[in-house]
C-alpha cells in the first residue's frame, strides 16, 4: 500500500461518516463520527477504513478508538465486508470511492440493521446460518459406505444451477428484505434459493420433500411479501425471485397434492 507521504501530495481527501457503537450492550455509545483520509488510487471503502485505522482522528480533531469492520477476500466473494453504504447494502471491498464519491462527497457507512450488532460495523450473521440449517441447505452423505459415482448431470442442468450456487451468505438480500426482521422468523430469500438449489441437485433431490416441508413451516416461503428487493441488491445476481417463485410453486403442489400421494 502506498505510504501516506507520497499520496498526501495530491491533497484529495475522502470524507467518511461512520455509524459507531462500542458494544452490543452499550446503545448509548451509538454515534456518528466523521473522518477525512488521504485519497489513494483505486481506493475502496475498506482501504478508506484502513486509513482511518492508521490515524483514527475525527474531523474535529478528536482522537478516537479505531473503527472496526470485517473483511477477508477483498474481491467480493466472501461476503464478510457487507455494510450499508450511502443507504444501500453492499460489499465495502467492491464499493469504489471514485464511483460513489467522485467529487469528494461524504460517504455514509453503517452496519447492517437486521443482525445483532457486535461493534461499529461488525454484525453477527448467525441467524443466516440458522436459516440454512432450518432449510437443510446441504446434501446428505453420511460417509458410512461407498456410494459410487454420483448421478450424471447434463450441462443444461448445471448451467441452471450454477448461478444459484454463487451465494456467499453476505446478507445483502435479507438486509433489504422488509419481511426479514425481529417480528418474523422468515428464513429469507437466500435460504429459499438454497432450497431450490439443493432440490435440483440429483442427490439433494432425494430429500426434496423434507426440505420443502421446512419452508412450509414457521418462517417459510409464505413470509415473502413480494417486494423483490432481494434480487435488486444481490451482488452475485442470483435470480432470487425466480427461486422463490419456484419454491412457492413446489410448496403449493405439495400442499394440494402431497397428502394424496403419500
Amino acid at each position: 500500500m502506498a505510504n501516506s507521504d507520497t499520496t498526501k501530495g495530491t491533497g484529495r481527501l475522502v470524507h467518511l461518516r461512520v455509524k459507531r457503537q462500542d458494544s452490543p450492550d452499550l446503545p448509548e455509545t451509538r454515534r456518528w463520527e466523521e473522518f477525512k483520509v488521504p485519497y489513494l488510487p483505486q481506493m475502496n471503502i475498506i482501504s478508506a477504513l484502513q486509513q482511518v485505522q492508521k490515524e483514527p482522528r475525527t474531523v474535529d480533531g478528536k482522537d478516537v478508538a479505531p473503527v472496526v469492520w470485517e473483511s477477508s477476500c477483498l474481491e467480493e466473494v466472501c461476503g464478510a465486508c457487507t455494510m450499508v453504504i450511502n443507504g444501500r447494502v453492499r460489499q465495502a471491498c467492491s464499493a469504489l470511492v471514485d464511483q460513489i464519491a467522485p467529487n469528494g462527497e461524504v460517504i455514509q457507512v453503517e452496519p447492517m440493521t437486521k443482525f445483532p450488532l457486535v461493534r461499529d460495523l461488525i454484525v453477527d450473521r448467525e441467524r443466516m446460518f440458522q436459516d440454512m440449517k432450518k432449510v437443510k441447505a446441504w446434501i446428505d452423505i453420511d460417509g458410512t459406505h461407498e456410494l459410487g459415482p454420483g448421478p450424471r448431470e447434463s450441462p443444461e442442468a448445471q448451467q441452471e444451477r450454477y448461478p444459484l450456487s454463487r451465494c456467499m451468505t453476505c446478507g445483502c438480500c435479507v438486509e433489504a428484505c422488509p419481511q426479514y426482521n425481529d417480528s418474523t422468523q422468515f428464513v429469507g430469500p437466500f435460504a429459499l434459493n438454497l432450497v431450490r438449489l439443493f432440490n435440483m441437485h440429483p442427490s439433494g433431490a432425494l430429500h426434496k420433500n423434507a426440505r420443502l416441508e421446512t419452508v412450509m413451516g414457521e418462517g417459510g416461503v409464505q413470509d415473502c411479501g413480494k417486494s423483490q428487493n432481494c434480487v435488486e441488491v444481490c451482488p452475485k445476481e442470483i435470480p432470487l425471485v425466480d427461486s422463490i417463485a419456484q419454491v412457492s410453486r413446489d410448496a403449493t403442489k405439495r400442499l394440494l397434492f402431497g397428502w394424496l400421494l403419500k
Partner: protein
Amino acid sequence: MSEAALADQSLFAQNRRAFLLRKLHSLTGVAPVGAFMVFHLWTNAKALQGQEPFDKAVAEITHTPYLAIAEWGLILLPLLFHAGYGVKLALDAKYNVSKYKTTRNWAFTLQRVTGLLAFAFIAFHLYEYWGKKLTGKLAPEQFYPALCQNMSATVKGIPVVGLLYVLGIAASVFHFANGLWGFCFSWGVTVSRRSQQMAAAVFGVLGVAIFLLGANTAIYFATGSSVQDMIFGKKGGSDARTCVDILQQTQKPASVGPVID
C-alpha cells in the same frame, strides 16, 4: 422430527400452522372478500338507473334465503380474519421504500397501506349502512335517499363523504388488484419474470376497470351525474326517481351539478 416424519406430513400437520394461516389469508382475500367486493360494486352501479332498480336489487339480496348465515359466514368472518391477520402483517414489515425505491417495493408498501385504509373505510361504511340496518335505524328503502344525501353534502363546495368513498374504493381496488398479482406469485402460478409482468398488466387493467365501476357510482351519488352523463349529457326517458329528484324534494339543492369535472 425425523426425516421420514417430515416427508410424510398430513395436510393439516401442526408444524404447517403458519403456512396454512397465511394461505387462508391469501385465499380469503381473493374469495370471498375480493369476489364480494366486485359483486358489490357491480350491484351498486344499478343506482345509476334510479332508485327503483336499485331498491329491487337491494330487495333481492335482502330476500336471499339464509341471508344472515351468508353475510356472516361468507363475508364478515372471512373479512374479519383477512383484515385482522392483514393488520398483523402490516405491522410486522420493516418498510424501506425510502431506501429501495423500486416499483415492487412500492407495491409491497402500498399493499399494506391500502389494506389499513380499506380497513378504516370498510368499518365506516359498514357502520353507516349495515349497522344502521341491523339496529333498525335505516330501512333498505331508505338506503338510496340516504346515500344521495350523505355523499352530496358539501363542505366549502366539496362533497367530502363522496370524495371519501372514491378514495376508499381506490384503496380497496388497488389492494385487490395488487393482491391478485401477489396471489399468483405466492401460489406459484406466475413463476417466470415474464409471466409476472403479464399478470401485472392484466391485473392493472382489471383494477382500473373495477375502480371506474365503483367510483362512478360514488360520483353519481355525490353530484347527481355519472361520468357518462357528464361526457355525453343526461339521457332522459326513465321515470325512476333519481338523486336529483330526491335532493330537490328535500330542498337540499346545495351541490347538485357537476362538482367534479
